[in-house]
């Protein structure tokens, strides 16, 4: 099997895209789960503040999500642009 330069580059880009999105999804998944767990505990303790706590949870998760979105962007760049 003869491997040409362009083929090798594309192969590396595809592999990179998968690794980028795959590993990049671990952190946000765990982080957002922790945020949600603590939000549930806080709401259990003080149900009157449910609205405020849900809002804060979503804002915190959105920030934690950002690295997942970076991974997604890099994966899409590797797949379609580079």
């Amino acid at each position, binding site marked *: *099997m*003869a*491997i*040409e330069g362009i*083929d*090798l580059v*594309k*192969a*590396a880009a*595809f*592999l*990179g*895209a*998968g*690794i980028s*999105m*795959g*590993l*990049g*999804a*671990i*952190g*946000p*998944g*765990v*982080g*957002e*789960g*922790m*945020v*949600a*767990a*603590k*939000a*549930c*505990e806080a*709401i*259990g*303790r003080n*149900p009157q503040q*449910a609205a405020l*706590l*849900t809002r804060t*949870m*979503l804002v915190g*998760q*959105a920030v934690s*999500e950002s690295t*997942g*979105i970076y*991974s*997604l962007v890099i*994966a*899409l760049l590797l*797949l379609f642009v580079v």
Partner: protein
Amino acid sequence: MDIELQTLIKVAAYLGGGMAIGFGAIGAAVGEGHAAAQANRALSENPGISGDIVKTMLVGQAVAESAAIFALVIAILLLFLQVPAPTLLKAASLLGAGLCIGLGALGSGIGSGMPAAEACRGIARQPQLMGRMTTTMLVGSAVCQTPAILSMVVALMLMFINFGDAPIVKSVALFGAGLCMGLGAIGSGMGSGHPAGEACKGLARQPAAAGPLTANMLVGSAVSQTPAIFAMVVALMLMFLNFGDVPFNPAWAAFLGAALSTGLSAIGSGYGCGLAAGASCEGIARHPRNVGPLTTIMLVGQAVAQTPCIFGLLVSFILMFKAFPDTAALAPAMALLSAGLCMGFGGIGPGLGNGMTAEGAIRWVARQSEHASLLMRIMLVGQAVSQSTAIYAMVISLVLIFVI
């Protein structure tokens, strides 16, 4: 370089044997260490019944040890196996068998340590419960051992079944079967330790709730086993399906990708489901009257924690059954391997995160069951957001398979 097949078989068997006991020894040692540490703590709390505590510790450690013994048995078999008709397929399956039991014993060893540890502490608190505590501990650790047993079954199949003269690409599928089962057993083995440990702890706290506690432990750990069973399904399909005359080049990557996708994503879901089941057992011990709402929210939380693994299974099925055209280029093959890696790793975090969210919500349903519906709603919103990265990973995998 010209290597004879008999040499290749030896290389695969020795490498597989090393990996089997190398990885397989980690989990049992960690689990037994945890049990011994908690036994020491229990001894300092109640030195008067040191005999009972040490006995419980040794019984619990013996069960945790069994995962490592499975790995040792496979390693010894691999070292002294005689292969009369060496083929490339056999070499690949021996390597896969070693990896399968090595990784598969890791989680069960750690998991079985948890009920042993909590049983020692429970006996220190309530010495009269010795008999029931030992029973609960043994049932719980037996469930923790299931993933290791499934791995051993797959490893033995890989070693002793004759796969005949299938095309060369089948050897990748056989190696993948071992890899998938081994990886997929880690999360379920570790996860099942949580409900088993919390059930032992709960028995000491609330001996009257023994019935619902055991039932909840069994239901919760049964659900935690599903990711390992998904991995076993994919492993058996890789071993026994007749893929026909598929072209070698992209097919090898598709088989490896299918193995990695389910195997890796099962780690997060298995452990996440275990966390949810553990919190539910703890809750029942604290407030036995809330068993109904607790079981409901545990099952809902576990179902959501299971989804990343189901995405992984879906990607595996697509990779196994879609017909890929023959090619000489490297890029199409790498796209398929990468799709499996992407979904596999991408499923770990969300599976774990969803389980942690469920754990938090379940804890407070136990304390304040009148707010169960509010907590369930918040849990589902939180899990949905945590799920998003698994969905990104699935999108990228599907793009890699269908678009590129």
